[in-house]
């Protein structure tokens, strides 16, 4: 929206094209409307600002707004509220019909009980190890690979990229069994990676989508920048470290968040490759013990398991949503 003043002459309508990312149509200076505040969104959607300013328009707008806010809260937040308060209730209170909206007595001891009984500390520590390791491997392996494919352009680079992107077309579920068998008995090497963090870390790094995102970003770095460094005698690794990485912070942020969140949320793969109860990730650990737990203890465990995800979301919202749209428009 920075170039809003230049956009005065409305161009003839172009043929229908899919979503040019930075849309120029936002800031328009039309005849009568005085530019009130610079920062205010001059954006319009379906409904024109004019209609919204009529009395009827305003009434409808507020009705819709309130309905949407209440509806979204009921659908998406209320279940979470029910989970948090469910864990504060005693087993007897949980069984009463109709249920109490607010817990009668706030009893945090259920959370402590869940922590001890399910050994959540262990599961959380495991999951952190898996997620952080996967993140480091993903960055180390995929950034270097994307850099090589984008800037060094070796022989067969196009073919390698195509093969990496082809893996995106294979739904993960259908190669679950062969991937499991591979990890169980690594070909040539004969290693068994089951119940080791490597079974999470290395497959997590083999991700065509991250390579694609990184390569696309590296492609946009001007060649002259790198050539200047090359003439000064910088090695390729030095160029990657001192020039490419610093300018690529946004995309590296997106890939980092995606890789951590993916490993954190994953269920099926850790279920298969980490069957030992002291190696389980938090999702698998809780669900394997869920049948023997009283309902309120289980809810407390679920709350504890969701806190890290929600905190991460709260902090990195922007990167997470950027990753989401990057994934949808390309892929």
């Amino acid at each position, binding site marked *: 929206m920075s170039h809003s003043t230049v956009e005065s002459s409305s161009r003839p309508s172009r043929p229908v094209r*899919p979503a040019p990312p930075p849309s120029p149509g*936002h800031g328009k200076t039309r005849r009568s409307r005085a530019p009130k505040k610079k920062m205010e969104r001059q954006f*319009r959607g379906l409904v*024109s600002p004019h209609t919204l300013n009529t009395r009827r328009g305003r009434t409808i707008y507020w009705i*819709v*707004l309130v309905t*949407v*806010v209440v509806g*979204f809260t009921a*659908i*998406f937040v209320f*279940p*979470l509220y*029910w989970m948090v308060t*469910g864990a504060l209730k005693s087993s007897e209170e*949980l069984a009463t019909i109709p*249920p109490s909206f607010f817990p009668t007595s706030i009893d945090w001891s259920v959370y402590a009980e869940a922590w001890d009984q399910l050994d959540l500390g262990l599961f959380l520590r495991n999951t952190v190890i898996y997620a952080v390791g996967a993140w480091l491997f993903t960055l*180390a392996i*995929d950034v*270097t*690979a994307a850099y*090589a494919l984008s800037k*060094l*352009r*070796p022989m067969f680079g196009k073919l390698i990229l195509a*093969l990496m992107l082809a893996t995106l*077309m*294979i*739904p993960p*579920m*259908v*190669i*679950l*069994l*062969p*991937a499991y*068998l*591979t990890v169980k008995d690594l070909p040539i090497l004969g290693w068994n990676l089951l119940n080791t963090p490597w079974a999470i870390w*290395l497959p997590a790094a083999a991700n065509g989508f991250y*390579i694609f995102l990184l390569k696309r970003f590296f492609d946009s770095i001007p060649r002259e920048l790198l050539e200047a460094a090359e003439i000064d*005698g910088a*090695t390729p690794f030095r160029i*990657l470290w001192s020039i490419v990485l610093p300018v690529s912070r946004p995309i590296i942020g997106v890939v980092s968040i995606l890789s951590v969140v993916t490993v*954190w949320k994953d*269920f099926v793969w850790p279920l298969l490759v980490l069957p030992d109860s002291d190696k389980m990730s938090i999702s698998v650990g*809780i*669900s394997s013990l*869920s049948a023997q737990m009283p*309902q309120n203890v*289980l809810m407390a465990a*679920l709350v504890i*398991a*969701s806190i890290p*995800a*929600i905190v991460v*979301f709260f902090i990195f919202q922007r990167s997470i949503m950027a990753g989401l749209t990057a994934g*949808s*428009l*390309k*892929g």
Partner: protein
Amino acid sequence: MTTMTARGPQRRAPGAVRRGLRRNLTAYGFLCGALICFAFFSWYPMVREFLLSFQKTNFVGPPEYVGLDNFQTVIEDSAFAPAWINTAMFSGLALIVGYAVPFVAAIVLNELRHARAYLRFVVYLPVMLPPAVAVLLFKWFYDPGAGLFNQILGLAHLPALSWLDSTSTALISLVIVSTWMNLGTGTLIYLAALQSIPSELYEAAELDGAGLFKRVWHVTIPQTKLILLVMLLLQIVATMQVFIEPYLLTGGGPENATVTVAYLMYQYAFSFGNFGGGGALGLMLMLVLMVFSAVYLRVSRDNQI
């Protein structure tokens, strides 16, 4: 890393061949980690999937080829037909709500001038939860006695349902969890797409006297046609791999009412120890999903998105 010898300034090789060789070696030095990971954990398993479905794997001796025996075994299984029907039903039902609702939600959200950040945050919250958490939470809601859903039905003076325990409602219960978990993704993607529609189009349509629904029909939908198609294909591929819901909620029951192809594949391998049968099911699922993937590839290439 050994390939990256420092290049002395005085030793600038005269031959381009030599420089090219060095560049290639360096590049492959950078690529080797990724090549190893992809080879072991993506490419080889893809090949192995084909082999697996024609082999008998018993972990004692080397696998032996058994032709189409595995396919015959799984097709004759009484759960085979229900698995495919349930998978298709699950996918279809998940689309009815999970496809239209996010689009409508995005259109409405796009018009709102208040609480946008809150609504965006809230709609994506369930997506951030580990799926196992969401599924176990809903398992409690589905409890026929003190579960939330029956309580709500009771408050509305409606008859209680048995949710996961009845063949008629079990599958739809799985669809509800799955949709709740994934609604946010579609909504935010559509929202991003809607924000790139030029305002001129709406203004022009309005000057031509198009009402609200006409504007949706003649401007919004044509402008987002492509992303709508892409999301349709991606959602079909994603929902047809449904596993965690039947695994955690029903175990495929009652009476195979919620057994899905992916779940049956898992059962073959890890409950019956028949990896060949599981591989055969996986291969069939892959062939079906590849059709959608191919269409998706075609669409995205033709339109250069």
